[in-house]
């Protein structure tokens, strides 16, 4: 990509992104193209990270392990839902992912947890997300009993309008009361340590960030 085009891209992305400065955007763009590989841009075919490449980054760089959550994070980044994260989706996504305000992060997390995208986190969705969160005890007759109970107490804690599912309003209120509940159903944001490492590496000397 030529310098002029890069400059233009950087400028336009910086304008739309409030959490990164120009240098940081440039670093992220560089990183993006490093990750994608120097594929020449072809007409009609979006250049970007596919699901697997992105999940790899989430796993290795940010230490995420939950497959389902990683898929959901990919979908969150992939705004146009074309199975591929473009450079603008990358920068925008990371701005929330790394530096989003509480409001942005709440929105992001809620969307991650709302598996079917209907605007509510249902009991089933909760169960789905929490199903591996407890140690299975062979002694118990119904191994899922603990999970079901956990879903119930979570709902009791967060479902303020008592409709048996979490709306965004429910979720928002619960998180404002207790920030710890932001990632209530699984880690979908970077933990502070890996975030710090990532930022230090990328924004300091982007050329050294090789695909891991």
């Amino acid at each position, binding site marked *: 990509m030529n310098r002029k085009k890069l400059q233009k891209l950087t400028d336009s992305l910086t304008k739309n992104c409030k959490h990164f400065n120009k240098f940081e955007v440039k670093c992220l763009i560089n990183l993006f193209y490093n990750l994608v590989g120097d594929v020449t841009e072809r007409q009609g075919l979006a250049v970007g990270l596919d699901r697997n490449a992105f999940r790899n980054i989430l796993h290795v760089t940010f230490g995420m392990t939950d497959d389902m959550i990683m898929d959901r994070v990919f979908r969150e980044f992939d705004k146009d839902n074309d199975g591929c994260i473009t450079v603008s989706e990358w920068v925008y996504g990371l701005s929330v992912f790394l530096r989003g305000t*509480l409001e942005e992060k709440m929105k992001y997390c809620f969307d991650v947890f709302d598996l079917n995208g209907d605007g509510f986190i249902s009991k089933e969705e909760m169960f789905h997300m*929490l199903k591996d969160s*407890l*140690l299975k005890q062979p002694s118990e007759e119904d191994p899922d009993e*603990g999970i079901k109970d*956990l879903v119930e107490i*979570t709902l009791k804690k967060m479902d303020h309008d008592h409709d048996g599912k979490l709306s965004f309003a429910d979720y928002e209120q619960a998180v404002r009361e207790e*920030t710890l509940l932001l990632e209530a159903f699984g880690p979908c944001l970077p933990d502070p340590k890996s975030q710090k490492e990532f930022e230090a590496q990328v924004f300091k000397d982007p050329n050294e960030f090789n695909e891991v």
Partner: protein
Amino acid sequence: MENQFGPLSLWTGLCCQHKLSIFSSLLQFQFKSLLISETTVESEEADNNAQPLLFLSVPQIKIRSFGQLSRVLHIATDTKLKEAQACIEANRNPIAKILGLDYNMIKEINEDSSVVTILDKITKDDDPESEIKMKIALLLKQLDLHLLNRSLKHISLEIRLNPGTVKNDVELLKRFSGKGEKTVLESIEYTSDYEFSNGCGAPPWRQIQGEICYVLVKPHDAETLCITCSREGVFLNGGKTDDEGEINYERKGEIYKDLVTLLREKSAIFSENMSQQEVRFNEEQQKEKDQPNAAPEEEAAALREASAASRRSALEKKQISLGRSQMTKRLEPTLNWNTTVDAKKNKSSLRDTQEEKHGGRLEKSRPSTSPGKAQLIRKSAEKIEEIISESSSESEEDEEPPDHLQEANADLPSEYWQIQKLVKYLKGGNQTATVIALCCMQDFNLAQETCQLAIRDVGGLEVLINLLETDEVKCKIGSLKILKEISHNPQIRRNIVDLGGLPVMVNILDSPHKSLKCLAAETIANVAKFRRAWRAVRHHGGITKLVALLDCRQHATEPAERSLYEAHDGEVARCGALALWSCSKSYANKEAIRRAGGIPLLAQLLKTSHENMLIPVVGTLQECASEENYRAAIKAERIIETLVKKLNSENKQLQKHCAMAIYQCAEDEETRELVRLHGGLRALASLLSNTDNKERLAAVTGATWKCSTSKENVTKFREYKAIEALVGLLTDQPEEVLVNVVGALGECCREPEGRVTVRKLGGVQPLVDLLVGTNRALLVNVTKAIGACAVEPESMTIIDHLDGVRLLWSLLKNPHPDVKAGAAWALCPCIQNAKDAGEMVRSFVGGLELVVNLLKSDNKEVLASVCAAITNIAKDQENLAVITDHGVVPLLSKLANTNDDTLRRHLAEAISRCCMWGRNRVAFGEHKAVAPLVRYLKSNDTNVHRATAQALYQLSEDADNCITMHENGAVKVLLTNFVV
């Protein structure tokens, strides 16, 4: 000597092995009875076995008789003492050597030898310190023994009955009872044959009252007596009701010391026959005591057998009636309940450990430090225990649990089970589940004790503290939020410390996350309320880290950590101060805070921050200001100014802590001045009128008191009408306030204007009323204040009218020396200013004797004050005569050799006064008071000089005294003083 110990052959063993320097002298003296070869010396005298009684072969000498020993020692001349010492040291156990091993007194010798070894050490070390230590140790030991003997005497007087003695009594009486005229009783028997393992026959619910057993006694000449034997003694109870066999436990008669005494009282025949049997009875009793196992007499043996048999049958009976007996029934379930609970607990905790093992999903980064190891060891030990109890209680558990669960269910609140469930998820959940469980747990009312204890009882504390050791920030935050709340409970605090929670929290103080730091510091603040916790915080470097939290500037330079869980720097500092406040109650921690540079940081925070921050900061300062070096630092850091300013704050708690800090610091003259210069006195005076908050009032009056020690401050206080406020506070206030109020008034009354004000406001009466109190600090201050008031004749009239002098006089009997001294000081102006003082003093029966006897005190302040009082008392000739009769002269003379200038002055004055009666002048000379008095003239205190000169003038009227003075060079010194 030899005769004393019998035939010579007996002491075959007294030998002294010691390098002797007297070999040559032996040669020189050429003892008649010595056989001298080249290298050895032998005595001609020999024992039965033809062994010489003295045998010397350098460097050894063996002596077999005291006769020879004394001769050798005689030769040793100068070194006699050394030789004797060496001899004794070499023969640690002469008695055993002389009389044989049977008489060995190893124990005593060991004790002695320990002393000897210490003595050895001392002489070797030449260390004066260890010598002092040794002396102290010996003195302490003596004191110890003395105390032990004393207390033993007391204890032996209070011996109470126990099941053993009662049983013996009954058994013995049984032996002497039956049909016939010579027996003491017709019959005596227990109401029930059943006996508990502790030897009591009474049912457990009566045992609680101290009752041991019940006896039915049928004397020859009275109805059957039903007697209760209890620990307090023996008494008649309501008797046995026939139909149910139940005993009416109500006490119906007097309590007697033991059975025999009671029966003597109740039955004449018993008492008569008893006196005949007395000797035998006592003999038996003695035997019973001395040889419980031996069976000396046939009778006793047979009896014992019989009683054993009856006991056996009782045992059988008990086993048979196990199902029916109410008593055992009541006992059984509780026992079972205990075991099942234990088993339950063990089993569940076993499961927990298994869970932990499987579910180590939360990466536990436990460092391999010693506490960690200790925990591991403890765990393994617990596991062993579990296995043991598991195997033993398995069967019971299978039978009992449903029953127990229902029972427990009924008792425990529903929260208990919910919390138990949450803790289960904490243990077995991954990060997500853990966070959810933690958040839900916060929704319980954690301020409520049931919830706090429920968390602990289901093993939640361990899990919460374990979570602190993980890398998960969210888990740590959630865990700390809960710990912070439940650590308000003192029991939980101790549990947290026991589980090693403090070191972990101290480590978290280093975390880059400010909110974590805050929470950890706040939790430490809650937990660190007792000594062990203070120590734990300090030992793990917590103080330094907490002090570092105070430094806001440092936080600002740290890279800003972007996270959702952040807090303000101010908040961090506030939490740090809060934790330091808790920790600063220990002396070592105060020192640690100072060394970590805490004072400048606290001063910094004091200037910059908000009220809720100020309270812990001022609290810490106030706590620390008890130390001298802190007060200096507080002055140097200009903290006083800020403290004074904050007195005007709106916050009552803050005002309280500021006033407390000023109270502590105002011991120092310069600080008092600073308080005045910064306008603190006005603030204090205005706060005096605000009486609703007693704690604050105590602090404010305290600060007022300390500040009023400076004259200028008193003037200011008068200006601000503080005296009026103080007098108003003399009634209806708690003691801690009164102490300070009276102290302040005492200081104010040192000025004539102050005295007048107090009198005009009617302050004298409440002050006199306070003389009947018992609070020591209060009494000290009250006597001081009254003494100050009494200087003014008009006030004195009031005091006299209220009989204040008599009250003061009776305080001379107070056990505390400072109260005594205060009372004696206060009496001086009273006697000076009272009308008919002499008559008044004489009216106190035994008063003068009391005063004179106080001269035997060993407290300097008491002595000085009593001397001053005597000076005043002696102004009245008649009183002087009385105290002379009570022996004031020898007592005063005895005190003459003192170096304390205050005492010297008052003593000299007292002597000069007392000279005015009879032949007291001569008596002082006879009791050798003159020479020491002359030496007083070398003191630097002019008051001492004046008083001494006066005393010498009085004494010089006796010629012998003049000679003594002259011998001691009084003339020269007096002249030089005069010239100067």
